[in-house]
């Protein structure tokens, strides 16, 4: 079994083992073991990757494996990894692990919960490692569907509606995506040897006329899950209704599929289309960036605030991708990672607060620093990280994006970039508003005094998210260099 396929196999084995568990104790232990194994594998993967590169392997993808699946259509089980993949997998495995910890006390149908969670993880891993568009699409949908159950069964509030909205919108987006992928397939070869393999399609020059039509289709198809304005509306309500671990996975990992897909498929395979359309999508993404942040200011539900913040932050990812240079792209990947950890951390904390206070309304909370100091302090740290404080990942990512975006000289890009930069102020406003209202100030209600302190599993979950944020924030060089190396082929395509 090769090192990447394990990422599909291990979760499946975990799911199989979960099927035989009887109660919460058993299932959470099995889920924990499974996710620990996945995490270990992902750490192993980065070392293996570095070792592989150290041997002088300069091919675009390493650890590739190709198994014929549907021979007549040339659909293959093609997998491979580059630096970007490796980091995305680490992100996913960490968030899943933290999610298991955060869900340590899940009450209703624990077995099913963990199964859905792990199935989602399978989809995500699979998506990241696939080099075959069919495979990618398959895993994409595998990742999306468990969300319906996860939100619908274990969620809160108008959960059925939110779950339905989320699923239908994402599946609707995949309608576009499917058309785009089929288009790529049928233009992948002039002589009928069609292929879904990304690397092979990249060798073909798809006519500009075709790219002109295919690019927006593929881009929107992926970008909807990356919360592109105005298709972001599934995300706030979905977040708000989802249980904690699901919000984490959803914002932390699932939404990353969008940016990743845009980069890996739309940008890489359709460079001419990307150049042609970038202005249009830059406008949308800048609107998303500013709009998300401004919308977040006025929200009162913690999860809504965070969801809009995600719209803003992920808007920045798309924005950076559309800047079409390596610095901005590097920033986009860093921002994906950084946002993944930060939002997951945020949602974990919000979940903990909600569990104690049974409300997420900031107006009803206040002075929490006194009663749950640990959670509150981490919330402040997460907030500071989110508003781009140096020393945390957000800063590194945002600065890389802005510097990258500034490499485009013309006035349109300049104006867009400067509009995008304003988000650092707006973010500060809504983050500090929450920190000020909820954590600081006098204690709002007396009964808050009895809040239980953070438990060990909650703390573990928190640290799993916090540590990477700090690592990226303080020592970004090695990470960004690995990413930069992996971006080279994309740059070559674009030129």
């Amino acid at each position, binding site marked *: 079994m090769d090192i990447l396929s394990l990422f599909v196999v291990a979760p499946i084995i975990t799911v199989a083992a979960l099927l035989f568990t009887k109660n919460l104790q058993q299932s959470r232990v099995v889920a924990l073991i499974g996710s620990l194994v996945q995490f270990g594998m992902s750490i192993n993967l980065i070392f293996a990757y570095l070792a592989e590169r150290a041997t002088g392997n300069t091919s675009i993808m390493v650890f590739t494996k190709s198994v014929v699946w549907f021979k007549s259509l040339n659909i293959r089980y093609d997998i491979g990894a580059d630096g970007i993949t490796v980091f995305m997998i680490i992100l996913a495995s960490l968030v899943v692990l933290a999610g298991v910890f955060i869900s340590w006390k899940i009450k209703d149908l624990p077995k099913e919960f963990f199964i859905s969670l792990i199935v989602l993880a399978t989809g995500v891993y699979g998506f990241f490692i696939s080099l075959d568009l069919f495979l990618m699409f398959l895993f994409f949908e595998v990742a999306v569907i468990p969300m319906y159950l996860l939100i619908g069964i274990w969620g809160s509030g108008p959960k059925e509606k939110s779950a339905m909205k989320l699923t239908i919108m994402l599946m609707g987006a995949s309608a576009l995506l499917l058309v785009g992928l089929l288009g790529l397939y049928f233009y992948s070869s002039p002589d009928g040897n069609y292929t879904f393999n990304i690397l092979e399609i990249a060798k073909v020059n798809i006519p500009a006329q075709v790219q002109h039509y295919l690019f927006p289709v593929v881009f929107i198809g992926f970008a909807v899950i990356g919360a592109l304005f105005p298709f972001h509306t599934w995300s706030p309500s979905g977040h708000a209704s989802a249980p904690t671990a699901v919000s984490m996975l959803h914002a932390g990992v699932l939404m990353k599929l969008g940016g990743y897909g845009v980069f890996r498929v739309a940008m890489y395979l359709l460079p001419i289309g990307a150049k042609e359309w970038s202005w249009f999508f830059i406008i949308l993404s800048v609107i998303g960036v500013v709009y998300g942040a401004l919308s977040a200011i006025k929200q009162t539900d913690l999860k809504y605030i965070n969801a809009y913040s995600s719209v803003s932050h992920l808007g920045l990812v798309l924005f950076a991708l559309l800047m079409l240079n390596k610095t901005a792209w590097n920033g986009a990947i860093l921002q994906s990672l950084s946002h993944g950890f930060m939002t997951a951390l945020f949602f974990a904390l919000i979940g903990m607060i909600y569990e104690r206070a049974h409300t997420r309304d900031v107006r009803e909370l206040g002075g929490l620093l006194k009663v749950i100091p640990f959670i509150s302090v981490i919330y402040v740290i997460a907030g500071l990280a989110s508003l781009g404080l140096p020393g945390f990942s957000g800063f590194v990512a945002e600065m890389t994006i802005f510097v990258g975006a500034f490499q485009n000289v013309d006035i349109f890009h300049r104006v867009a970039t400067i509009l995008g930069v304003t988000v650092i*102020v707006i973010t500060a406003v809504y983050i500090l508003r929450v920190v000020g209202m909820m954590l600081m100030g006098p204690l709002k209600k007396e009964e808050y005094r009895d809040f239980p302190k953070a438990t060990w599993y909650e703390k573990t979950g928190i640290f799993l998210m916090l540590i990477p944020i700090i690592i990226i924030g303080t020592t970004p060089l090695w990470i960004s260099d690995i990413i930069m190396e992996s971006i080279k082929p994309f740059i070559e395509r674009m030129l």
Partner: protein
Amino acid sequence: MNFSYTILIPLIPLFVFLFVGILHTKLTPKIAGSIGVLGLSTTTLLSLYTAYKYFFEVGKVGEVYQTFIGAKTTWINFTDTLHIDMGVLLDPISIMMLVVVSFISLMVHIYSLGYMKGEAGFNRYYAFLSLFTFSMYGLVIATNIFQMYIFWELVGVSSFLLIGYYYDKPSAVAAAKKAFIVTRFADLGFLIGILILSYYAGTFDFQTLNDPQGAIILNGIGGSFMGLSVLTWALILMFMGGAGKSAMFPLHIWLPDAMEGPTPVSALIHAATMVVAGVYLVARMFPLYYFIDGGFVLQIVAYVGAFTALFAAIIACTQNDIKRVLAFSTMSQIGYMMLALGVSGYDGHEGLGYMASMFHLFTHAMFKALLFLGAGSVIHAVHSNLMKDMGGLRKYMPITNITFLIAALSISGFPFTSGFFSKDEILAAAFEQNKLLYFVGLFVAGLTAFYMFRIYFSIFWGKDRDYKHAPHESPLTMTIPLILLAILSIAPGYIHFSDFISADRTSFVAHLDFPLAITAVVTGLIGILVAFVFYKKESNIPERATKAFGAIYTWAYHKFYIDELYLFVTKKIIFNVVSASFAWFDKKVIDDGMIGIGNATINSSDKIKKLQSGKFQDYATWFVVGAIALVLYFLYKN
């Protein structure tokens, strides 16, 4: 000379921060405090050692002070040319700042042992102090503009944390938020400035940027935008960042509110060190400011500085909270420094303003820290910030009284104090360049003396108030720093700053210009005299004066309603109009739009249900009609 040990200067406070911060629930206050003081003492010694080495042994090669890079490592790569380094840059101004920061910080650390005794968050407080010190060091020794920006943000957040130290006080929370957001807004300009500058210059590095013979200054790359060259715009935007941090008009509104923090914090951050970062920034990039577009931006700097100096001094005369008076005083004095930079030239004696600015930065740090710590001592004794709760304290607090007096004299430019010398140089520089600015400066000097002695007399003279328990002198941990700072409020005046610091790094001789000096001293004395008449004894003169000024007084008392203007813009416009309408748009248009598509689908399902009428003859009709329609369509098409 190997300066690589200087890396320890920022790292020691960082470790103290991490150690105390992580273990803050485990450590006793005593241990935490002593760790902090110990760490800071070490770095102070290191700084002093470095200063000695640099200024007296190795710094000067020929006639010119050299720049040393103590350590440097790449932190992240952006493009082929742009990358952020982390390192230690040593040159006269950075070393001077190191000394200032270390010393004031050490004083505050010691002082706080007494002042903060018994506070619940004592350990947290020390952790934050260390964090601040670390960040400030990082800012000062930055080798490149981006490193400076990074630490610039970090000092901002430390300031936020320390202002919000009393986090259960809503006013403190609001002040902390305000400070952070306003400076963040200014930093937006800073960042965009950096982006523009670095794009055209292809580097972040100070040494390359500032080289007067370098490509950037000589060739002035880049196009123009709205009549100004792009580089000018970059410098203006960067000055915006500096203005925000240094509380220049109109980005000053956060500083008075920042007094919600503990008083030692105000002394350290909001008087001596962080708020002068803006001055330091301009000084750091002085060659660029001077050479690009013939110093156009420096003009802006000078006028903004002068206006702020005047504006803040006027407000300071009307405030009743002593810390607020001091805060406005700080703004005013920083305005001075900006003014001095703005009127400075480059070569030799031309660069008098530059030197004066740094000189004043140094002396101001000492006496303003002293003023704050003295005020802290008073507040500690009477448990109030308001002047009406104070009076006649000289009997109870002799040391505080004397030291406060020294500081007040120094800031008023009383002869033979350090403030006299530094302020004189500034006025001299202004006089050479721009008479208008000179007179503004002179007037402000008088105002400064007036409001300083207004509070001095109100606190230490006049009638006793009915104190709940008799005020008493503060403990040694607090008075020793006061005494040390009092000494340093006088002594530095006798250092020949122009030997060490100048715009072009060569020494020159700065004379005391006696006519100007006498004018300034007389103005100051008039100010003191007026204050003496008004406030030495309780009288109704101030009230009458207030009435005489009428509307102007009310305006000044309300800080010219700038806060209200900001509040209107943020609360009313951004919050209630922009954000609320965005939220509405999102909910009603986008979200409901998407749901509407779904509902329309479901409704259409309801609309067409009649087709399935249950009558199979209807079905047959459809069947036949459908078939015939298809036939007709294709017959027609063929």
